């Protein structure tokens, strides 16, 4: 019965979404406050029904109901309960259900926290979200129903959750990523509502901004978790492969980052209005494109589940409708919202424009590299793959320019700045970054000029941010008093920017100073990598809850002092399937020691020699810490009182309007 409840809940959700898409929108055009007011309860209702469906699927998993096809494909009775729950989003159908839950959750959040929004805007935003919900509900009901039954002959045992996904990192990676993807639909809905209303002012930007920042922060964390998972679970120490599934998440992130900065200009200066709207449309469209790429099976990756051509064509149609309609609306209505104003080349506006152009360029290149092989294949130009060298070739220099501009722009003022002031603001951070860049590599065994440049770029972002904080607190009675005077959004910005610096430094250090060795090792063999001595103590057999593993024992020491005992495993899950590599990592703030077991050289004699990969990864943790700082910065910025003051201001103007009417 439970799966049927879930199925009915989805259908009920679809019916409510149709009402949500139509009623408030129609009300906003016919000036019927009652119709507009239905938006909030309807949005909450849709969320309620989808939540019921989600709970039903979770119950089916926990009870191991093998009459449900999706449960059979992704679970197993000996799977730990913990993973039974996360297996809900371990496959295609459940992922879409999770996506829907997030989508409806965001709509419900707008309904709950957007009570102060002007009613017309709220009605239209919720209606647009209702339309998006209709699309995804139709998608799940028509092509990917997770509640399909295998009746009358259900199997007695499930196939099991893909062992790659039996990992704590997997619990948060998909939900965070989807929170980000789907969160951009809020900015999208706000943009469409602004186009429809022909009104885009600072108040609108102040409304759209926090939602975008939260979505962006979730996406940042989601991407970082995915990278972290690849680093330790795919087993071989790589953290970014320019795989289409990674690019699919990176593209909306790049546009989302551009959108954040463009929204700042729209809020503070009332400029870049139509550009902001275009970015909001692109950010969401790219999220959908990412879903299409991953779910349709046109690309080969860990994320490509057994696929059905109908799904791909459905998402492609949905994408075409959304992009087509919103761009059409943009073409018709953008002139109504655009603004004219002048700003100098030395102004903050110029630097933010540079930021936007660079981020969009980066996105365009990633898009080209990702789509070109598919286009070439479709046109019969041969089977081509575009490898990491292509992406690195442009992504690295563009990032360098972006970071240089970031450090410069931090000190610029709105409208215009004076050259002498800018130059004097740049001088000290420049010198400090230069010294850091020249001195830091001395701590390592070889001096690398590319490393010096990379460190300079990261350090420059850092010293500029610190420099700005020092300048802003200079005129206060004391440093602490100066710090207190600044707003949360100011600190949010700097923390996020310093996060960028930390990521850049981590990437540079790990690229330049990491050491990787693939070796053949027998019990008792020793090898030294980057000053660390590794002794292979042979292998032993271990039993896990639902797997058996061959565990290698590696004693790591430095200068005779023991550092760690690392136990990399090869796991065979009892449900059958593939052998999994489970790397062992000794993580630290300045270096990770990463050890992975390959295969026995002679499969008939597992106690003989093994293939072992020993890695010294410099500053690996800085990548995750930096991403965490970026997301934290976003969170702090959203906490700024300004966004709550906006409501008060709006209330006054709304009541003013009523009075004049």
């Amino acid at each position, binding site marked *: 019965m439970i799966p049927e409840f879930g199925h009915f809940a989805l259908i009920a959700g679809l019916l409510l979404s149709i009402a949500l898409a139509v009623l408030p929108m129609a009300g906003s055009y016919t000036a019927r406050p009652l119709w507009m007011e239905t938006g909030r309860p309807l949005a909450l209702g849709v969320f309620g029904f989808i939540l019921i469906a989600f709970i039903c699927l979770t119950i089916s998993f926990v009870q191991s109901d093998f009459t449900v096809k999706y449960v059979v494909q992704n679970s197993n009775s000996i799977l730990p309960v913990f993973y039974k729950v996360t297996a809900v989003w371990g496959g295609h159908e459940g992922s879409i259900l999770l996506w829907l839950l997030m989508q409806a959750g965001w709509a419900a959040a707008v309904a709950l926290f957007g009570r102060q929004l002007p009613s017309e805007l709220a009605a239209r935003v919720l209606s647009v979200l209702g339309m998006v919900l209709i699309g995804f509900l139709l998608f799940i009901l028509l092509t990917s129903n997770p509640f399909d039954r295998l009746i009358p002959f259900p199997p007695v045992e499930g196939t099991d959750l893909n062992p790659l996904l039996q990992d704590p990192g997997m619990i948060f990676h998909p939900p965070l990523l989807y929170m980000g993807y789907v969160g951009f639909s809020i900015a999208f809905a706000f943009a469409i509502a602004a186009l429809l209303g022909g009104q885009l002012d600072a108040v609108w930007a102040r409304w759209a901004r926090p939602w975008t920042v939260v979505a962006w922060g979730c996406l940042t964390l989601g991407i970082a978790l995915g990278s972290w998972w690849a680093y330790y679970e795919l087993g071989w120490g790589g953290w970014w492969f320019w795989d289409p599934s990674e690019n699919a998440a990176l593209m909306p992130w790049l546009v989302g980052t551009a959108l954040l900065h463009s929204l700042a200009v729209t809020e503070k200066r009332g400029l870049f209005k139509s550009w902001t709207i275009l970015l909001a449309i692109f950010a969401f469209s790219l999220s959908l494109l990412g879903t299409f790429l991953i779910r349709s099976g046109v690309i080969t990756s860990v994320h490509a589940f057994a696929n059905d051509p109908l799904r791909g064509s459905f998402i492609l149609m949905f994408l075409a409708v959304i992009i087509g309609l919103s761009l059409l609306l943009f073409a018709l209505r953008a002139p109504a919202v655009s603004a004219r104003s002048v700003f100098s080349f030395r102004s903050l506006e110029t630097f933010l424009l540079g930021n936007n152009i660079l981020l969009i360029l980066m996105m365009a290149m990633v898009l080209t590299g990702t789509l070109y092989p598919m286009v070439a294949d479709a046109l019969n130009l041969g089977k081509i793959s575009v490898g990491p060298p*292509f992406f690195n070739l442009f992504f690295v220099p563009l990032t360098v320019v972006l970071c240089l501009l970031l450090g410069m722009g931090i000190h610029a003022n709105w409208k215009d700045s004076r050259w002498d002031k800018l130059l004097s603001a740049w001088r000290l951070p420049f010198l400090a970054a230069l010294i850091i860049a020249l001195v830091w590599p001395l701590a390592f065994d070889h001096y690398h000029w590319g490393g010096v440049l990379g460190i300079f770029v990261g350090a420059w972002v850092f010293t500029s941010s610190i420099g700005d904080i020092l300048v802003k607190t200079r005129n206060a009675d004391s440093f602490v008093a100066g710090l207190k005077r600044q707003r949360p959004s100011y600190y949010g910005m700097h923390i996020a920017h310093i996060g960028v610096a930390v990521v850049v430094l981590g990437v540079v250090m790990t690229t330049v100073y990491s050491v990787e060795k693939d070796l053949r090792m027998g019990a008792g063999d020793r090898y030294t990598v980057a000053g660390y001595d590794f002794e292979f103590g042979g292998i032993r057999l271990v039993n896990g809850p639902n797997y058996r593993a061959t565990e290698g024992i590696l004693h790591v020491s430095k200068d005779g002092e023991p550092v760690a005992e690392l136990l990399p495993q090869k796991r065979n899950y009892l449900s059958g399937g593939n052998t999994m590599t489970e790397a062992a990592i000794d993580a630290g703030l300045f270096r990770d020691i990463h050890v992975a077991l390959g295969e026995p050289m002679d499969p008939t004699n597992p106690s003989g020699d093994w293939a072992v990969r020993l890695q010294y990864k410099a500053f690996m943790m800085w990548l995750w810490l930096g991403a965490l700082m970026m997301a934290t910065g976003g969170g702090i910025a959203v906490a700024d009182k300004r966004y709550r003051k906006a409501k008060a201001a709006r209330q006054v103007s709304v009541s003013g309007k009523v009075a004049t009417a």
Partner: protein
Amino acid sequence: MHPVRKQRLILVLVLVTLSSVAVGFVTYAMRENMDYFYAPSAFAAGEVPFEKRIRAGGCVVPGSVQRAEDSLDVRFVITDGEAELAVVFDKILPDLFAEGEAAVISGRLMQDGTMRADQVLAKHDETYTPPEVAESMVSHESCADGAKI
């Protein structure tokens, strides 16, 4: 010229220059960094350039995997059902690499006709065959089906 117009002109010029530089850059980068995929028959027919980064794929011929006694060096043969290609590799093979299964190899073709692999990718689950390999198989089927023939 009116200052606003002048500013706009400069902006447009900067944008045009930037985007043409970008387009040129991408075209160049694309040409240098595209890896073409070849099936073993293409190697046999001499269509594959030497010493250039390429990709190849096929099914690992059962019994063809030979390991060195004292290092990680490994040698194996892949086939598309028609021709065979010898591959040498000196790193750790992926978990799902197995005889009779599909593998995609990126690397370079050496003058002696063997391929030196930089990277070996095996399929990522037991029921999946990479589309390039499936299409290049003479029988247009997966490796398991090919082996039965």
